């Protein structure tokens, strides 16, 4: 069993399944309505030489993207204007099955989290784990047991490779 990045963060018997980029891409491509939430940690993050924002914008063609307000400026400068809302606020909306989504088409089937402080993401995943039917995936560098699916604990370079791989697999679908 994978040990959470913060080793004491063991919630109970129900813990996330570790996924490779291939499996993650497969799962995500099968899901109907999906959303990716990007936190303040993506600031300054690069994948190879490219800013991660470029990859996220690529991904926004496949799924709804919501970013932390504190990183919105980076996207505006790139000419994009994703929805920007605090992760606590968005998670609160997500836990309501009746919520109509940011596009008015209904709540989401799966939500992926990326770039949040570890413990904050863990807590938000916990909200959805216990109080919604939404499936969750953690795409950060560290194993998040409260998600349904999570990347393993990874070294920086491994994670970059994983993330790049995931995006290209999703784009190929």
């Amino acid at each position, binding site marked *: 069993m994978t040990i959470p*990045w*913060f*080793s004491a963060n063991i*919630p*109970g*018997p*129900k813990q996330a399944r570790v996924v490779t980029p291939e499996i993650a891409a497969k799962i995500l491509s099968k899901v109907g309505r999906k959303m990716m939430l990007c*936190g*303040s940690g993506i600031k300054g993050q690069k994948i190879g030489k490219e800013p991660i924002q470029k990859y996220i914008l690529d991904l926004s063609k496949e799924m709804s993207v919501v970013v*932390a*307000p*504190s990183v*919105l*400026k980076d996207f*505006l*400068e790139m000419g994009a*204007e994703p929805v*920007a809302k*605090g*992760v*606590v*606020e968005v*998670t*609160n*909306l997500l*836990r*309501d099955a009746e919520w109509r989504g940011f596009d008015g088409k209904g709540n989401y089937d799966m939500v992926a989290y990326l770039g*949040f*402080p*570890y*413990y*904050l993401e863990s*807590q*938000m995943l*916990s*909200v959805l*784990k*216990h*109080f919604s039917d939404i499936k969750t995936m953690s795409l950060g560098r560290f194993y998040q047991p409260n998600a349904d699916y999570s990347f393993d604990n990874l070294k920086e370079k491994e994670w970059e490779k994983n993330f790049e791989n995931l995006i290209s697999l999703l784009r190929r679908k």
Partner: protein
Amino acid sequence: MKGTKFKIDEFESDLIKATGLEITVGRIVEEEWEEILGPTPMPSVTDLRKWDFALLNRYKPMYAPLCDLCCLCTYGKCDLSDGKKGACGIDIGAQQGRIVLLACCIGAAAHGGHARHIVEHLIEEHGDMPIDMGKNVEVEAPLVRLIAGIMPKKLSDLLEPLEYAEGELMHSLSATHTGQEGYFTDFESKALHVSMTDQLLMEIADVAQISALGFPKGDPGAPLVDIGFGSIDTKKPVILCIGHNVVPGAEVINYLRDHDLYDKVEVAGICCTAHDLTRYDKGAKIVGPLSKQLQFVRTGIADVIIVDEQCVRADVLQEARKTGAAVIATNDKICLGLPDRTKDSPKDVIDNLLGGAPGALILDAEKVGEVAVRTAIKLSETRKRRALNVVKEAKKCIQCGLCIRECHNNLDIPRGMEKAAKGDLSLLSEIYELCIGCGRCENVCSKEIPIVSLLGGAAKEITRKERYKVRSGRGPIQDTEIRNVGSPIVLGEIPGVVAFVGCPNYAGSSKEIAEMAEIFLSRRYIVTTSGCAAMDIAMYKDEEGKTLYEKYPGNFDAGCLSNVGSCVSNAHIAGAAIKIASIFAHRNLRGNYEEIADYILNRVGAVGVAWGAMSQKAASIATGFNRLGVPVILGPRGAKYRRTYLGRPDKSEDWMVYNARTGEKVQISPSPEYLLYVAESKEEAIVSIAKNCIRPNDTTKGRQIKLTHYIDLHKRYFGKMPEDIAMYIRTEADIPITLKAEIMKILKAEKWEPRITPDPTLLERLCRKKEVK
């Protein structure tokens, strides 16, 4: 039976006819205070349940379990995931409410224990002194008046509300027992209740110590005192006081004064005891907030460490052992396994400590004063402060990476070690700046490297220069100040009151809190602070080398920074909001909680910010403010409290109030949007603070001012106009003039329609006219 009170609205017998009779067994309620008694003096656990439900209906709790299990009784462990219930029938939602209630009870108990000790001690030592909050403070104890319905005149008058709060605490705590409360909203109502009594307890403690110990009495010009490692004169013997109860530390100062030793010994403090020591004597030094505790103890600068209560590291004795400092435990809450030397002669205890005993438990404050001073003087002559070879220690590191996984802030200690091993201490020194001093990294280090000491060693040059000024805690806000700001706050012309409070469990740099404070000071909000947050605000200087306390006056006024004092002084921030309702708006206080909270929620644009909230006390403090109608924003770690109270601006039906003028139900702007929110970043918090200062009652001019700040900060940090702006415009007159064209375009696109500005209330009984159907 003492203190049992009953009211009889109407009574008629052959002999007596009475109305409005109120009897307290043990004493007759004195009717010196002419104010009419409101509906809920000393409310029971359920008396304000309706108010709580009105809040919880709009601000629904969002639970984020930190653990899926419960292990509170022998039926357990129970796994509550996937909708499973525990063997007792509880579900995961109720279980979260239960844990939150437990945290609030623990927090209230900590303040209550402190209050009980200090009131009894002060009466014993100083006699039944009059309560005196200074010449401009007539409403001496707004929370006691509001909640207990009592106007205290002397210290012993505080015993009745204290007893009341202790009783409520017992009832609330009992509800967490297996087989008691079972539904989340009722757990929440009890959490709100016990946290309200927590505010009462804080006020009792601070009113007593201000009255009896000569602390500043609502003085905006309270002295500027020294804070920071660099302010401690290490050439003198040093006595360090850690905790929240000033009594033993004050006795140290008394002993020094009485024995002509005042200038010969350094008295310093960490955490709220430090604040209160400087309120007692401006010559005392503040080392810093809780996050500096382990670092400072490790420096070995302190010869004697006095611990009183709350926020003391459980391993203080082992840590002191490493440096040869003697520990004196002084309070029944923290005895540390030490022998009780209360009845022994000071000489015996001192000899024992000098002979190498690690510490002593002395439950007599006066004796603590003598033992601490004489021991410190002697120990300082013989004790050697050991220097640490950072490079040599860093070379032991095997890059296993275990430390970084334990670190709250994911600080890259291994890389810091790698560099340090080559003689470059810069990264370790940078890490020091972000370290909250928890020591968890060390616990797992494969090579048993004293990482915390290495960080301190690497940053030695910086810490030596850490010398700042903080304004000593002023205590209450003056009634005259409230008269000046009441109207502009309620009308919205002062854009808001922002209170930075709480612990230093920050996710980023401790400087963030000062940066946030300065943003609102420069925009002429009223900024107030207390506790560790007040210390961290001080530990930052501008280009001219000035701290915010030197730059901004200590008044409770626009563009001013008032430090009310220690944790228990938080009561004065609540008190200021209450006094706005009573002094400015002439609402009755006495036993009239619901109406005052309703007033504050709808009219007083105040926001609390607990950026590094850590303790159970911080949980009860925040929840107490929430019941009073004040929203609180927490830093990202606050998510681990498991519960937030969040409004849904997208649900217009949640934002209906009565218009007290007509009795009609009317739509308001979603404000305050949250009662308890967790912000991921400083930027998110800043914008959220500005938005949550908006209140339904703002005048158009006030709304314009508040929106100007909200929009400006939103544009600055997020790069665009807020998307929800139309929700906050009631009439065109609310639109900031310079933004008229831009906003009108948005309003048109959103098919906006004007709304009235009601006389807002959630309480139907306050409507002057009932709705005509």
